[in-house]
Structures are given as C-alpha cells and as structure tokens.
C-alpha cells in the first residue's frame, strides 16, 4: 500500500471497543476469513437480525461508502482480539482514521495491512463535519508522504508511523518473516541468557 483515494464512512462514537467491532460470540471461527459480515454486528442490526438493519447506523446508510473508516477517539480499546482488524479489513476498509488508537489494536491493524491514521482531534471533528455535509468527499491518504488530505479543500495533516512499520506496509513485509530471518540471533541470545 502506498496511497488510498476514496470516500469515507464516519462513525462518531468514541471509545469504540473491539467487542462492538466484533462481538465475542463470533470469535468461534478458526480461520481469518469471513468476519466482515459481522462487523459492528449489534450496532448494525436490531435484535441480531440481518433483516432489520438500523437505518441510523452509518454502515447501513448508502450515502456513505468507501475504503476509509473514520471513527471517534480511542478506537479499538478493550480485548486484544485480532478478529477486530480482520473484520474491518474483510469488510473492505484499508484505512482507519481516528484521533487516538488503543495500542494492541494499532499493532493488530498494522499486522494486517490495515493502516491506522492518527490525526488531531480538531482535524477529526472537521473531517466528520465535512463528511456529514458532503458524503461524496474524497479523502487522500498518502503513506509515502504520511499525509491525509481532504481533496476538495486541500486541507491536510501529517500523521506519524514508525519507519520500520512504514516500510513493511509499503512493501508487504510482515514481522514474522523478519523474526524468522533472525532466528540465529535469537538462539544465540538464549545461550547467552542461560
């Protein structure tokens, strides 16, 4: 991933925990696939029934769509379940924008090539207002430059990402491959430690 240009889906709630993103009763699967259909399950449907979607929930509102999820501060708090990142990715999002991310979720997202973009609270609120006013607003996320830009107005903000993680995201490298490549170092460390 280098750059995403897309419309976005706004969810204004703060402290969205991973139990909301994917409720525990859906964690019985033993593969990484298929979690997207239960993303935000209990916010999306009345009485756990797909026939009765909650019209006021942004994912059910056809005016909002796109590859970017925009959410209130402290996104992904609570349980360490990586299923939350899988569900968001499986639903089709490639970027999550918030003013604050919980630590474990941030790692899980990066390990699944879902880019967490942390912006200032002011920029986030402005982004929400912009998407409310015009759901067709295009947002540009440039990982190389580390910028997020509201295309029509050109307003933009820089975001931070660890340089190692940035390289991994851009090139599709994963941490496991890296760790496996240094197994001799790990074994040498074990000898020294004991």
């Amino acid at each position, binding site marked *: 991933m280098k750059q995403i240009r897309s419309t976005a889906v706004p969810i204004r709630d703060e402290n969205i925990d991973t139990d909301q993103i994917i409720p525990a009763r859906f964690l019985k699967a033993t593969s990484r696939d298929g979690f997207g259909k239960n993303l935000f399950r209990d916010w999306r449907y009345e009485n756990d029934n797909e026939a009765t979607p909650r019209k006021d929930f942004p994912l059910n509102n056809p005016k909002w769509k796109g590859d970017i999820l925009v959410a209130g501060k402290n996104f992904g708090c609570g349980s360490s379940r990586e299923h939350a990142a899988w569900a968001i990715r499986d639903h089709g999002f490639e970027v999550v924008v918030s003013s604050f991310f919980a630590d474990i979720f941030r790692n899980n997202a990066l390990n699944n090539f879902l880019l967490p973009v942390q912006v200032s609270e002011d920029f986030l609120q402005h982004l929400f207002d912009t998407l409310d006013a015009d759901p067709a607003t295009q947002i540009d996320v440039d990982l190389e430059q580390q910028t997020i830009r509201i295309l029509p107005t050109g307003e933009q903000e820089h975001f931070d990402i660890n340089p190692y993680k940035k390289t991994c995201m851009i090139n599709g490298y994963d941490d496991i491959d890296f760790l496996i490549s*240094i197994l001799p170092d790990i074994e040498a460390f074990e000898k020294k430690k004991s």
Partner: protein
Amino acid sequence: MAKTLFEKIWDRHIVKTIEDGPSVLYIDRHFIHEVTSPQAFNGLRKRGMKVLRPAQVVATADHNVPTIQQHLPIREELSRKQVEMLVQNCSDFGIELYGLGHPYQGIVHVIGPELGVTLPGMTIVCGDSHTSTHGAFGTIAFGIGTSEVEMALATQCVLQSKPKLMRINIDGQLQKGVLSKDIILHVISLLSASGATGYFVEYAGEAIRNLSMEGRMTICNMSIEMGARGGLIAPDETTFAYVKNRTFTPKGTDWENALADWHTLYTDADAVFDKELHIDAAEIEPMVTYGTNPGMGTGISQHIPSLASIPLNEQANFNKSLQYMGLRDGQPIKGQPVDFVFIGSCTNSRIEDLRLVADFVKGKKKADHVEVWIVPGSKQVEQAAMDEGIDKILMDAGFMLRQPGCSACLGMNEDKIPAGKYCISTSNRNFEGRQGPNARTLLASPLTAALAAITGKVNDIREYI
C-alpha cells in the same frame, strides 16, 4: 544509571533493536487458549514451521467452555470444534495442555500464577489483553494479537516498541470494605479508558504493598482498561511467599538462586518516570461503574455525573451510554436494583475472592429476584472452595457455583445476561453487549457484588461490615 523495574526486566530480554523501529523482545512464557490461537497454528503449518520452544508454552481452554457439566461433550458445535482444535494443535506441536477435565484447567491468568509458571522477572505474553495480570509478580506481561501469537510460537519473540513509563502510588491505608478492585476502578475513573495508552504502569505505595498477591493481580489485570500496555508491581516477601513451593516453581538451589536475583527487581530510588501520580488510599470508596466503559465509575456515595458537568464534545457519548444502561444523569448509584450477580473472571475469581464472599454471605440468603453465578477461576480454586466448605456456604445462600471458565465476563459461551437486565459483575468490562446483547453491566468488587446479591440492590458495603 538508575533504572525502573520495567527497564531492568526489559533490558534483560532485548535480543536486538531495529533501527528506527521496535525491539525484538524475548518471551519467557507464552500462554495460549482456544480462541486466539487456531489461526496462529494454521499460519505455522502454512510456513512449515515448528514451535521453537514448546516447553515455554502453556495451553488451557477457558474462553469458550461451558461452566456446567464439563464432563460431557460441549453441546455447541462451533465451540466444541474450537476446543478440539486446541487439543489437536497442542498434540501436533508438542505443547502441554491443561484442557477440560484436567485438574490444572482454568482461566489462563488464574492458572499461570497458581501453578508457579508465572515467576518474577519474566516476560509473558498471551493472546488476551488481561495478560497484564501476571505483572503482579514483577513481570513484563501483556496481551497480543493472533499474528503476534504466531510470531511468539515460531520464534519465542515479539516486536515491541519501548512504552512510556508511569508510576501510580497508592499511599496510606484503605478504608474497611474497600478492596483492590475499588482501587483500580478508582484509578481508571480518574485517568479515563484511554488515559494510560502508550504507557506501562508500575503500581507502588503502602496500600499496594499491603495487598495480597490476589489483590495485586486484580489491580494489574485491569491496567488495560485505561489503555496501558500492562501494569506491574515490584516483587517482595509477599510475592516470594506466594510463589514458593508451587508446582512449577524452582526448588532447592535453583530456588535460592532465583530468589537472590528477584531481590534485585525493584525501581531504583532515583529512577525517573514519564508520568507519576499519587493517590490517597483513604479517599477511595467502594466503586461501581454506571456506563459502558470502565472509566465510567463512581464512588458508591456519589451520584452519576450530571450532563452539565460533562464537556460539551463528550455529551453525545455520555448520553448514549446512559441510555444503553437505562440510567439517568445525576441519579445516585446506591439503591440501583440488580437482576444478576456474576462473581468470576480473571479479575476476581481466585480463592481469596471466594473466601471474602463466603465470609460475608455465611448465614444469609440471596434476594429472591436475583440470580447469582459464582464461577471459580480454576479447577484448583474450585477444589479449594470445596475443601474449605465454601461451596456449601454459597449454595446455602442460594448462589449457583459453576465450573471454571471465562463465562459471563465475555458471554462467549451460553452464560449470557438477558437483554435489558442489570448484572453487577466482578469482571473487567462493562462494554455494550459484553455480557450478552443489550445486557447492562455494573462493575464492582466481590464484596459489593455479594452485598448486592443479598440486598438485591447496589449498596455500600461499609454500612454492613
């Protein structure tokens, strides 16, 4: 150079540090369970990898197991398959499993310490955010995602950036009836559900030193609820006395050597933290949460905050939360009726918790309309409860003693609170739907929960003891 306890343990476990990137952290103990491990084992198979150090991995089944009739096959098909997959994976990869029916089975964060698998100075991970529990022993312990579970299985390492460090001092002595659960709920209510994100927290001060190991585990357990990566407490004589002679604790000369090393595990007097807080223990009341994140808690004598006292930009979330809970802003929390009482979870299901509850309810009866579930943290806790006659006291009070597992803490198995019902719970999370779709959770200490079981309402334990 002066070092914090965290830094002493961290420095010993760094294999190498990536330039401009995270460090490769060596992991001494890796706990796994049925829910967050299957995809990791699938990944190993795909790569043709072995588990690098199976002897450093311990498995149990806890999140998704029934808490009645555990001797029978699990009825729910997906749950049964997930538990069977753990059995298969442990057998294929040579990992010790304390599965259903095993005398060591239980909640992963209860069995690690009680078996002496968790020892001071270690690094510990598990695919569960409450892994911070083990920090009570002076360890660096934290929750990880499934990709990291795979990394830890394949290489006995994870990649971690060094967190910022915070020390929270609880000075002085607690009031009677105030438990360690109240300390941590108080701290989270001060810092909010995100106030410690990016930090590892060391808990210190007289009130922490005076806690038992069970009490310390409750504190460290909930570190994640304010966003912290983990929490830890310097090991001391209380720690060493708890650890000594447990099943897997070092013995003989190994014990002597380990003990000498553990005595070096403390924060140096002039070490510096990125943030430091002091809290007066005497000011802490029995706590109850009223909202849908653990930071929304209040002292029992206080009222739920008024809407006007909430910053404008947070009012929408506050209102949504109270609406979910069916509570009004400004109302007292004391007197709130409850329908269910859940005493269990990796936060408060240890033998000391059950002893406290049994001491209080002995000779009393539960309120008629209330259903009370006691779920011991492990087979060993269950056995001790029976040996001490606690089971009989609880049953005489009309409580239901179930079998070990995570149970209604996360409602993954059939132990769910019905929609709209209030449950006072000794667990760690009051998120929407956590205990079942539309269930309403009030987090509290085991004593406050036991009192609610008897009176049918949220009440102030200080008036009853």
